[in-house]
Structures are given as structure tokens and as C-alpha cells.
């Protein structure tokens, strides 16, 4: 069917140095060899007419039998080749292809042609030394398709990067240079379209430390996100959540890095932190002021009577609603007060301060001695003031006890507060349980009654808030009055700060549980 090349072409004539038998067989061997190669081959003589071709050529071009003949000129062959192309012979591209293949024949030429069935044929034209041409046609479809797929894949990656709703940059793993950035990246970093990615110097925008975090990201690393301050070239800055992941871009290892603008969140966080610091500072100051309302422990005397007052107070929060105070009224009275506002925190602290001011205010009145000698007078005034415009329902349980240093009598009014405990010098402990009335601030019509008890040297009176009796251990068991009594049984009038020991016992009992309530206590001891 095909005219076998070795029949005539001088270039393929067996060498004269070959043995006779070999010379006879050489054309057949060459024919077999040429038919076996993957390329289609055609040879044209000096007159540019076809003088030989192999079977592979016909297969490649899917030519019918008889399509090739020795009379075929090179131009005709090119016409057949172009006709097989996907664009036929009529298009401008086909005309260009014919022109390029048929001019400057003394030069080697390589072109590709896609056939109508989608195959891509590479056509290599080589001039022969004695004139004439040789054509080598190869099916490069697989190679071109693979390249196309790669290019298509890269195109898709770029499309995805460009359309992603986040600023993205592809950074080369080896040199740290930018390979690609999307439009959002340019907008976020304030970069013009004309600036190529390679010319963007990231060191001007990010700190060396942050750049190292990006380039040092490992394959499969899941917690590589970090926050970074980015400096734009115009001097402005923004906070970014930087999210680098290892990536392959254009066949090279790279890092795909997302930049999320978190400036608003950071600003809000900073404002919140500033606000928190300000509030903490305010509360710290409020705590200092509140603690200054509490007088220090006292060892003193009025007239012939000497006594000791120990005090302990610990708010559960920065400020609290417990109140401890003592003051002298007139020449003979020592007034003790301990209260517990019905909540904790800043509101309770203000209510506590209000109560404290009322007690101190009453003590400054000309009739203070009368109002405290029978403390129901003071309690009534405090109650009336606290009930006034009290829409929150906040109240204070208050124990006011007035010790008359002349008579040795302790008069007390218990406005809803826990009963004080009296430890006699002999060791007996009794509750001062007479109820004076409801807590103050609740019922404006409430009337309170007082009670009194005679104290002798060596006697001690302990008043606590429920923050002590209701302090709980991990299992919920409360400290209770019994443990308060155990403490009181061991307290001695000459002890310097016995209440520190009580607080330590309570904290040990709680065993690390957070204090749920304010704690306050007052221990009054008649020494002589």
C-alpha cells in the first residue's frame, strides 16, 4: 500500500562497507524498523515530490488507501495534512499553516496541528543535505493534554484564589517571594494592580518574626493561625489574622496565606480591656475607700473600764455589703455595729456605705447618747432613712450594741441579724437571742425592741455575719454556729487578733472553695 522508503532514497541506501548479504537484507530491515517507529515519516526528493513514507504516517493521518503516491508534491501533502486539521483548509489559520510549512524549506521547521478528532500532531520538517525534505510526524496528544490539564488546573486555582472572599497570597517556600496575590489582598494591603506579586516585599508589611511563622509552617499543621499587625506603605496599619497553609503552586512548594482583617475586633477587644482595667481600678479604689470605713482593732479604755475590739472583714468581691464599726458616744458609751446587706458587690457596698453614714451621722447628733443608750432609737432612724425611696428591696441586717462603761451593761438591738454569742469568763457560751425586729430598710412601720446583758471583765461578745456560718466545704456542709462556738471557746481577751484565727479556720474549712459571701466579725472583750 505504501511506498516503502528504503526502495529508493539515497540517504537510506545501505552502506558500501556492509557485507553483501547484509547489503541485500538492509532495505527490508530498514523498512521494518521505520514501520515500527512511533513517528510517521515521509521523504520528498529534490523535486519536492514524495519518494517514500512509512505505514505509521498513514495511520497517524488516518489516510485512506491510495491517498499517498509518488506523484504527490510536498505542497499537496501539506494540503492533506492541513485538511485533516480541526479547522479544515478554509480558515485563516489553515492558510497560515500552509504558508509556514511550504516556505523557507532550507530551514528546519516544527509546528503542531490539531486533527479534527482532537489528536495533536507534531510535524518536524528537516531539509536533506542533497536537497529534498524529510517530515517526521508524532502524536503528542497525551503530552499536550497533560500540559493542558495542568494549565487548566492552574487557571482554576488562580480563579479560585481571585474569587475567594478573603485576601490571599501565594508565597514561594524557597525564597519567600510572592507568586500570586488576589484583588482582596491588593485592596487590604493598599497595592495597585500594576505592581507584580514578585515585586511586593513582604518584609515591609510584616515583622520578620511573623514572616518566619508563615514560611516555617509545616505540612498538615492545623494551629498555625496567628494575629499580626500589618503596616501599609502609606503608614496606616491594620490587624490581621494570618492563616498560612502549605500548598503547591505551579509545581513548586508554596504557602497559601490568608489575611483576615480583624482590626474592628481587636479595637473592640482593646476598648473592652481598657474599660475592664478602668473598672477594676475604680473597684480597687472603691475597695480601699470601703476598707477605710472599717476602723482598726482597738485596745483601749473609757474611764476605769478597759476593753478590746477585734475586727475582721473580707468582701467576697472587690467591694462588699458587710459593715463593721465601733465608735465612742459621749463620755461613757462604746457603740459596736455589725451589719450585712442583702446582696454583694457594688450595689451592696453603696447600701453599706449609706448605713455606715447613717450610724456615724446619728452619732454626731446632740441626742446621740440617748439614741444609742437604748439603740432602738438609732435603729428606728436608720430604718426610716433606708426605707425612703428603696425600690430595690435591698435591706441590711444590723446588730447595734452599746456598752455602757459605767454600768457594764451591753444594750443591743438585733434587726434581723444573727444572734451574737456571749462567752462568759467562766467559759459558758450563750446566744443573745432576743429579736429586735426585721432587717432595716424593709418595713418603714417596723418597730424594734432592745435587750441588755451585764458584762464583767473577761466576758467576750462575738458578732458574725452569715458569710461565716454559711461558708461551705466542697460537699456543701456549712461552717455553722457550732464551729463559731468552738472558736469562741478558745478565744482569750488578751489575744492580739483572735479573729484572724477564725478567718483562717473558715478558709481552711472551705478548702479552696471560692468565698460565696462577704465575711465580717467583731469580737468585743471586757478586759477590766
Amino acid at each position, binding site marked *: 500500500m505504501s511506498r516503502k522508503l528504503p526502495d529508493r532514497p539515497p540517504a537510506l541506501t545501505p552502506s558500501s562497507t556492509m557485507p553483501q548479504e547484509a547489503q541485500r537484507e538492509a532495505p527490508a530491515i530498514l523498512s521494518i524498523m521505520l514501520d515500527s517507529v512511533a513517528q510517521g515519516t515521509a521523504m520528498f526528493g529534490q523535486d519536492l515530490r514524495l519518494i517514500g513514507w512509512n505505514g505509521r504516517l498513514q495511520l497517524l493521518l488516518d489516510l485512506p488507501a491510495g491517498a499517498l503516491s509518488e506523484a504527490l508534491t510536498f505542497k499537496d501533502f501539506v494540503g492533506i495534512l492541513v485538511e485533516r486539521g480541526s479547522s479544515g483548509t478554509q480558515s485563516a489559520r489553515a492558510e497560515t499553516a500552509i504558508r509556514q510549512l511550504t516556505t523557507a524549506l532550507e530551514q528546519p521547521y516544527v509546528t503542531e496541528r490539531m486533527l479534527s478528532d482532537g489528536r495533536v500532531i507534531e510535524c518536524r520538517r528537516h531539509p536533506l543535505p542533497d536537497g529534498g525534505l524529510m517530515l517526521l510526524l508524532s502524536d503528542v496528544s497525551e503530552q499536550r493534554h497533560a500540559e493542558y490539564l495542568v494549565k487548566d488546573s492552574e487557571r482554576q486555582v488562580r480563579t479560585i484564589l481571585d474569587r475567594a472572599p478573603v485576601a490571599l497570597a501565594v508565597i514561594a517556600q524557597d525564597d519567600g517571594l510572592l507568586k500570586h496575590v488576589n484583588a482582596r489582598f491588593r485592596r487590604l494591603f493598599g497595592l495597585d494592580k500594576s505592581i507584580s506579586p514578585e515585586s511586593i516585599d513582604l518584609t515591609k508589611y510584616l515583622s520578620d518574626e511573623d514572616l518566619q511563622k508563615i514560611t516555617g509552617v509545616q505540612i498538615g499543621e492545623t494551629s498555625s493561625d496567628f494575629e499580626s499587625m500589618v503596616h501599609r506603605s502609606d503608614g496606616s496599619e491594620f490587624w490581621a489574622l494570618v492563616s498560612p497553609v502549605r500548598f503547591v503552586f505551579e509545581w513548586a512548594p508554596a504557602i497559601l496565606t490568608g489575611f483576615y482583617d480583624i482590626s474592628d475586633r481587636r479595637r473592640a477587644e482593646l476598648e473592652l480591656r481598657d474599660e475592664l482595667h478602668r473598672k477594676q481600678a475604680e473597684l480597687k479604689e472603691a475597695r480601699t475607700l470601703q476598707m477605710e470605713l472599717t476602723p482598726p482593732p482597738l485596745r483601749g479604755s473609757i474611764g476605769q473600764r478597759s476593753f478590746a475590739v477585734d475586727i475582721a472583714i473580707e468582701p467576697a468581691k472587690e467591694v462588699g455589703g458587710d459593715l463593721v464599726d465601733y465608735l465612742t458616744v459621749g463620755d461613757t458609751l462604746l457603740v459596736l455595729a455589725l451589719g450585712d446587706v*442583702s446582696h454583694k458587690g457594688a450595689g451592696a457596698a453603696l447600701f453599706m456605705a449609706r448605713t455606715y453614714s447613717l450610724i456615724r451621722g446619728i452619732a454626731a447628733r446632740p441626742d446621740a447618747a440617748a439614741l444609742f443608750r437604748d439603740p432602738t432609737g438609732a435603729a428606728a432612724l436608720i430604718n426610716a432613712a433606708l426605707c425612703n425611696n428603696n425600690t430595690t*428591696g435591698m*435591706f441590711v441586717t444590723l446588730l447595734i450594741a452599746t456598752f455602757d462603761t459605767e454600768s457594764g451593761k451591753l444594750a443591743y438591738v438585733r434587726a434581723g*441579724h*444573727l444572734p451574737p454569742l456571749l462567752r462568759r469568763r467562766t467559759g459558758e457560751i450563750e446566744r443573745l437571742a432576743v429579736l*429586735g425586729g426585721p*432587717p432595716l430598710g424593709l418595713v418603714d412601720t417596723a418597730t424594734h425592741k432592745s435587750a441588755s446583758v451585764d458584762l464583767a471583765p473577761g466576758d467576750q461578745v462575738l458578732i458574725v455575719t452569715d458569710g461565716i456560718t454559711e461558708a461551705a466545704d466542697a460537699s456543701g456542709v456549712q461552717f455553722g454556729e457550732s464551729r463559731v462556738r468552738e472558736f469562741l471557746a478558745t478565744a482569750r481577751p488578751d489575744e492580739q487578733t483572735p479573729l484572724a484565727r477564725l478567718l483562717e479556720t473558715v478558709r481552711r474549712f472551705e478548702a479552696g472553695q471560692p468565698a*460565696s459571701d462577704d465575711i465580717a466579725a467583731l469580737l468585743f472583750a471586757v478586759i477590766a
Partner: protein
Amino acid sequence: MQITISEFGASGKKVTLVGKLDIRGAEVIDLPLATVAGARQSIVVDMTAVDFIASIGIRHLVLAAKAVARGDGRLVLLNPTTLVTEVLVTSGLDQLLPIVRSEDEAVAALRR
């Protein structure tokens, strides 16, 4: 803390509390109790299953009692535990928050 509200008699409400009436419990009962009290109907608060009461809890009960009293109603506490009763009595609040031991007693107390 759980709070359940139901009818009690012809014109009263029964508020049943279960759990600790501490700070968290007080937050839970705050709005529902205030809403019921705002209607100024008499209220029976069933305290049988309240095992702890803090001052903040007392505050909410007192506020409700005061609101009900403005409408000529009453608020009574039904059958509080020994511990809760002791707190209320020690605080001198049993006048403001009367304690009853049965529903019949509650009906009688609300009629007064």
C-alpha cells in the same frame, strides 16, 4: 431552682419553688414572681422543697409581699423547712412573710 405557678382558690396564686433560693435561684424566680405579685393577687409560696435561702432570696419574697400588700392581698409561705424557717424567724421576717403549715391554714391566712 424551679418555679411553677398555678391557681390557688378563687383569686389566689400558688407559686411552688424547688431548689436553693441563693443568688442563682433568686435570678430564676425574679421575673415570674414579680409578675405574679404585680397582679396583686394573694400568693401562697410553697417552700416545702426549698432547702436553702440566702438574703437575696428573702429580698425577692419581701418585694413580692410588699407588692401584693399594695393591692390588699397577702403573701404566705407554705411549709418551709426547719433550716429556712430558722433563717426567717431569726431575721424577724416571719411577720412580713407569715409561715403556714398546710393549704387549709394558707386559705385561712389569706382570708384575714
